[in-house]
């Protein structure tokens, strides 16, 4: 029998997966790689965190392990997207024509 906690958890799962879906939409729609990183990795990170929270509501005895996954994601996700952005910039990746200011290129003379 589904309890109140189960229903709250399922609702959180739907919210989280809605963010996953929006991340996919952003990844397809954004014009250049930097914006794709922004739209893709950030919204999906929040989506996964909400999913973890939702599962923790449905299965309270799993919450320690879910917390471990959440902490791990919180630390590794920003690092990997930062490193990707830096690699693309150093490699001279193409920017969308909408980009109107690039202080990094000005400073590094690239």
């Amino acid at each position, binding site marked *: 029998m589904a309890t109140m906690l189960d229903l709250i958890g399922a609702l959180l799962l739907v919210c989280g997966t809605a963010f996953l*879906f929006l991340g*996919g939409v952003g990844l397809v729609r954004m014009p250049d*790689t930097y914006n794709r990183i922004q739209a893709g*990795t950030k919204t999906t*990170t929040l989506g996964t965190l909400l*999913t973890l929270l939702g599962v923790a509501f449905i299965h309270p005895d799993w919450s320690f392990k*879910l917390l471990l996954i959440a902490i791990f994601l919180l630390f*590794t996700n920003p690092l990997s997207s930062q490193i990707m952005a830096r690699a693309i910039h150093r490699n001279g990746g193409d920017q969308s024509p909408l980009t109107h200011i690039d202080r990094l290129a000005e400073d590094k003379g690239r």
Partner: protein
Amino acid sequence: MAEQLFVLLIGLAAVLTACGFLLTLLRFVKGPSSADRVVAFDVLTIISISGIIFAALMADRIIYLDVALVYALLSFLGVIVVARYLERGL
């Protein structure tokens, strides 16, 4: 009543995850640059972690959460390696 609502919500969540996965896969196939593919790959793994957690929930087995953890670890390493490779120039 509550039971049916629960099943409906879980089903909706699964459908949304699948749609997100397919959209990301579209970007992965289209590219156009290798950097775009790596970003799409990163997002695919994050969505897959949610998928694995769904699998754990459906099968009611906590051991699948370890799979999700190791998957997160490996994808982080993969992205770092590819980024270092891109920095040296292709």
